[in-house]
């Protein structure tokens, strides 16, 4: 009986579970509730993905008010795909978190951790599903506030300053988005994304709308850590608790990338953004600089978490690169990389978290000799690391392959070449760790404590992601089909119109039911 409510459930379920978690008080119960709710959301998200692949767009009018007067939830292939990733990673991270936070966060804060995690999940799901520009801002702020809390839960005092910097940058970003949405509203009188798209389409070139778009893009770029605006990300990911780093690195920035895609393709339309305003060149340059600059910085980091954080910024460069190619193939490669990168970074951060738990450090020196003492963890790390590099038979290879193909399709030999060079840099920074783990002897620790393998509850989610990296590297049917359908849908305004009528009939069907 709840099927017609599925589009709103991934938001509402965690939102209800969050206060319940706090009321439960016992961290064990809170953990159980959070994990179950997150798991249910994942199942719903996957079923939504299947439905959208099958019949296009799902629209859900909140409060029964038809858009644009009410707020609408819109699910299409693109956001259903990312929603599945977000809820899936959230579930795995929660399983992982139980043991991981035991050493990193004081016992009394555990329920707060689960509550904040669920609120963050609510926010991210809301950003993905909503079809209303202002509603997006509200959910952005829910997820951001929860994130600041999560980052600051770590016991290291640098986590506090990292969280503060994140808060200031994040709020500036959100305010910029607010300014942009205001300018759009001023010219069109509506906040619903489809309605906005239709009304913006009437303008050929408008200074207010251009400024609005610029502010939104800058605001979103802060949130997704595009190159010159990424300075909040490395400290936040370095000093946050490991479970939080794993969750944020594989979801939060991806969601922001999706927001950018949504504003560019759904609301303004690729034509307006790229041909009238020439945004593609700016994005292309920033993406390439991000890939190189941050990959280089990553190669010289001694803290592995910092290194992975810089690598994340570089990988975001690949996603933006895909978008800035302004072709369906490029966009599809970008979306595919969102999906695949979530799998790799999740596994990598989980592995580092396990190492941190056992050795008490995330420094590269701590990794020496771990190939022998923590074989399972390091094997998962290796698989995910190979995936980041883009070795064939891993998920990373698939997305880079499509990216290079998309670039070559446009005769951009240089870009394709640069992507390959970027992968070489990834070999350097991942290789340093693998070298330390497998070919160096462990440092003799003074305490003479033997390092044990990570507990099972942490290994299982890590390995699920590692196996997923291989699975989606070999059997690409699901990820590629979904990304392809999503890219096609986003890119063709006519296709959106067709889906719109389809969704209307679908919603009528739902009403009839």
């Amino acid at each position, binding site marked *: 009986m709840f099927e017609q409510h599925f589009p709103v459930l991934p938001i509402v379920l965690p939102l209800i579970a969050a206060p319940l978690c706090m009321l439960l008080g016992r961290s064990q119960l809170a953990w159980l509730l959070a994990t179950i709710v997150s798991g249910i959301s994942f199942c719903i998200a996957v079923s939504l993905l299947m439905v959208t692949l099958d019949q296009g767009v799902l629209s859900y009018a909140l409060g029964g008010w038809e858009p644009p007067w009410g707020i609408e939830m819109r699910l299409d292939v693109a956001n259903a795909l990312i929603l599945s990733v977000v809820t899936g990673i959230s579930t795995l991270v929660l399983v992982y978190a139980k043991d991981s936070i035991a050493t990193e966060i004081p016992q009394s804060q555990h329920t707060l951790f689960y509550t904040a995690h669920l609120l963050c999940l609510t926010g991210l799901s809301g950003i993905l599903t909503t079809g209303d520009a*202002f509603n997006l*801002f*509200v959910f952005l*702020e829910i997820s951001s*506030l929860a994130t*600041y*809390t999560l980052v*600051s839960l770590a016991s290291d*005092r*640098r986590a*506090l*300053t*990292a*969280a*503060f*910097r994140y*808060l*200031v940058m994040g*709020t*500036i970003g*959100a*305010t910029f988005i*607010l*300014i942009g949405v*205001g300018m759009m*509203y*001023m010219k069109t009188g509506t*906040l619903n994304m489809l309605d906005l798209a239709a009304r913006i389409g009437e303008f050929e070139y408008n200074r207010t709308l251009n400024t609005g778009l610029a502010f939104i893009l800058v605001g979103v770029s802060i949130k997704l850590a595009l190159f010159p605006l990424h300075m909040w990300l*490395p*400290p936040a990911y*370095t*000093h946050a608790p490991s479970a939080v780093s794993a969750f944020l690195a594989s979801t939060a920035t991806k969601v922001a990338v999706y927001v950018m895609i949504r504003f560019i393709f759904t609301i303004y339309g690729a034509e307006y953004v790229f041909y009238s305003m020439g945004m593609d060149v700016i994005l292309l340059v920033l993406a390439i600089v991000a890939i190189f600059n941050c990959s280089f910085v990553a190669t010289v*980091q001694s*803290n592995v978490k*910092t290194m992975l954080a810089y690598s994340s910024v570089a990988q975001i460069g690949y996603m933006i690169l895909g978008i800035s190619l302004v072709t369906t193939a490029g966009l599809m490669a970008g979306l595919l990389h969102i999906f695949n990168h979530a799998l790799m970074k999740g596994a990598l951060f989980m592995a580092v978290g396990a190492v941190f738990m056992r050795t008490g450090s995330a420094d590269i020196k701590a990794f020496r000799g771990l190939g022998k003492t923590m074989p399972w963890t390091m094997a998962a790390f290796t698989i995910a690391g190979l995936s980041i590099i883009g070795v064939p038979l891993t998920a990373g290879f698939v997305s880079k392959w499509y990216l290079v193909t998309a670039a070559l399709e446009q005769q951009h030999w240089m870009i394709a070449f640069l992507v390959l060079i970027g992968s070489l840099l990834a070999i350097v920074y991942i290789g340093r760790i693998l070298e330390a783990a497998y070919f160096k002897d462990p440092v003799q620790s003074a305490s003479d404590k033997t390092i044990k393998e990570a507990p099972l509850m942490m290994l299982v989610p890590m390995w699920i992601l590692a196996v997923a990296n291989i699975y989606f590297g070999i059997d690409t049917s699901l990820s590629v089909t979904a990304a392809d359908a999503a890219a096609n849908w986003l890119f063709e305004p006519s296709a959106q119109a067709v889906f719109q009528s389809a969704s209307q009939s679908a919603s009528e069907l739902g009403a009839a039911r």
Partner: protein
Amino acid sequence: MSFIVDYYNYWIVVFLMMAGFYIVISANNLVKKIVGLNIFQTSVFMMYISIGKVQGGSAPIVADGITSYSNPLPHVLILTAIVVGVATTAVGLALVVRIKRAYGTVEENEFEDKDALI
């Protein structure tokens, strides 16, 4: 002349926004940064409310003998945004208090000297 009458409100609001924005990015003291953030946001709220104003209109509460109302939608949006703003301020200030306790200072350059972030 009508050009100025049409836009003076937005221009002054832009000036206010930028004053707030300047405080955020230039201040070294964290409390002042938060104050700047609030000024920035409040000014953005003013922009929204200016959008909603209708000349000769009255507050959007139904009353006898009034035919023209200002636009209620921006008001609703800003009500929400104000709440979001105070929520952010509260968390930000809580972080400032904790930073003071951990580092003994709330001046950005001083605690960055004590602990390089990366």
